[in-house]
């Protein structure tokens, strides 16, 4: 069953067409990769799904419902969250607080209730903290609970972005270059984490990544963009050997690597 359906999505910045007429469908509970050369339009594609940008034309359907025209926070309410290529943490706040913010949309408390000291709300807050801690344990950040997010090493910040995103219990999780700035060993554990998230959390994952080893290893399906256009799609093995993809993106060496 397809959870997400992209129809002829186009985005123009002035004279520049960042994505052009892209269509794809993402199966529920799959891991889908979007790859392509720099400036191909991958991040722009994520930005349209999460309503950061409004598409110039085309449609985005989540379980058949269109997301176009929603506000970014509404998209989150519909069950799509993301991480950012340029890390965007709440850097002044602690690691745990970052995760708590991720839970925002599923906490029920209203501020009036908070002021009235309603026991239900106090309880919810307590549980939220414990769950946030569990999530930090899950991504391996339990030693940084009270650290300011901005002071974490790069790789840890990336994992915190993931933790914050899964805190909202999304149906679809978009990861924009999650392995950037990680060494191979760290990338390996990230790969395991992504795998585990899919099975354990029942989440559909779409990721952008330039690390072909990771991409080839975990994706069920790959879409390749170049200059805003979809130039190929298929299973990892098809993509690995696709001439056009090798030429535009992989290069000879890298394709032999994965």
């Amino acid at each position, binding site marked *: 069953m397809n959870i997400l359906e992209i129809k002829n999505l186009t985005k123009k910045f002035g004279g520049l067409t960042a994505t052009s007429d892209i269509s794809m469908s993402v199966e529920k509970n799959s891991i889908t990769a979007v790859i392509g050369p720099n400036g191909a339009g991958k991040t722009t594609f994520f930005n349209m799904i*999460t309503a950061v940008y409004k598409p110039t034309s085309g449609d985005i359907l989540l379980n058949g419902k269109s997301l176009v025209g929603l506000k970014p*926070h509404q998209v989150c309410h519909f069950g799509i969250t993301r991480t950012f290529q340029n890390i965007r943490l709440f850097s002044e706040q602690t690691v745990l607080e970052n995760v708590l913010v991720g839970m925002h949309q599923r906490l029920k408390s209203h501020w009036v209730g908070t002021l009235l000291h309603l026991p239900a709300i106090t309880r919810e807050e307590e549980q939220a903290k*414990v769950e946030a*801690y569990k999530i930090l344990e899950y991504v391996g950040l339990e030693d940084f609970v009270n650290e300011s997010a901005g002071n974490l090493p790069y790789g840890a910040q990336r994992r915190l972005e993931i933790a914050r995103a899964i805190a909202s219990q999304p149906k679809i999780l978009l990861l924009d270059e999650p392995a950037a700035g990680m060494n191979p060993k760290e990338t390996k554990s990230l790969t395991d984490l992504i795998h585990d998230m899919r099975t354990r959390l029942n989440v559909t994952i779409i990721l952008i990544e330039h690390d072909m080893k990771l991409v080839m290893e975990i994706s069920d399906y790959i879409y390749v963009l170049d200059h805003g256009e979809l130039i190929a799609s298929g299973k990892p093995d098809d993509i690995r050997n696709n001439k056009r993809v090798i030429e535009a993106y992989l290069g000879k060496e890298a394709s032999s690597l994965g």
Partner: protein
Amino acid sequence: MIKTWFEKFADNTTGQIIFFAAYVVLTTLGLFLLSDSVTAFLILLLSLLILYYLKLNIKIKWALGLLIIAVLVPFAASQGSSYQSFMDVGTLVLIYVAMSLGLNIVVGFAGLLDLGFIAFFAVGAYTYAIFGSTQANHFMPFGHYPLPGDTFWLFIPIGAIIAAIFGILLGIPVLRVKGDYLAIVTLGFGEIIRIVLNNMNKPINITNGPMGIPSIEPPRLFGIAIQNASQFYYIALVIFLFAIYIATRLEHSKLGRAWKAVRDNEIAAQAMGIPLVKTKLAAFAIGASFSGMMGSVFAAKQMYIDASSFTYLESTIVLVMVILGGMGSIPGVILGAAVVIILNNQVLTDISNTLTQLSASGVISVPDALSPAKMQRFIFGILLVVFALYRTKGLIPHKNRVFNVSKLKREAAAEKNKYKDDPEVEGSES
């Protein structure tokens, strides 16, 4: 040496309590005996700061703090002739603290720079002033004004609500404008409100224009008219406590986290499901309502208001209180407001009076152009620069809440954990 002693002291609760009790008793006694001494008054107030730094149970701290400000300070001060003067400064401190707490929500928590905050204070003040004097007769088709002083109490919530509405009105342009552009929009808004209030004596006379509104009814409680600073002190105290309660409760609530998230990174905040518009408007409305409440108190206390109390300079002074105290830090903001008010309305006046007396009696001689009576703002300016340079993050900088990790760990271990393969209960999860 000193450090180790200090560390030991920090762990010794009884020691601290004894020390603190001794301090409070002594200084209370000090003020009681030297009843007109500003120094004695300030040293007693210092106990609150000491209390803040003591490592005691938070509830005990609150109880002690309340005891000091609600009982000891007024009692000790009441012995001297400066009683009303001290209580007047105390009332002003409380008024401005509540306003600063409101502005702190807007600037400190939500990160929206506001240079027109005094407008909400003005709105609250005028609301009571108009109906608490004969002014309303000019345009209200029904009713008889002034409303009796007993209705004052109603005007505290009314002031809050009207100010909140104005907060939302201001918020609407904010939805698009960012950063320092916002600062200028709010500045403009503040000036618009002031000028309009100052000109609304025609075509219909609503605010009596530049002439201001005199003879505002004093509040009445059980038939007693409240007119003394020492009485207003308690009204302001109650609202102040209310404001602190709201501010601290909200800081660590879902809404508080949303504010800070919006402040730190709007795009990420939205992506996490935080509605930008609603969150910002809530900050403006709640922040404004603190000012609105205190506005009514201010009008009743002054018994006369005109637009000159609500200038742009006032807005910046409230902002100075917030930044000086430490943005986003509730204790800091309280200290910031207290320092600014006490400096301006008590310490500097006192110093300049002393110097004036000295120069009058020929002890020191200064040319008239440099007469100490004219120096207050100058000294205040120097102090601001010095404070800012030496406490760059504010007097009491904001600290992130520290979570009890071991407790969280224990609780996480005790509960069912879907993020973990639990060997014992394996299979029980479906």
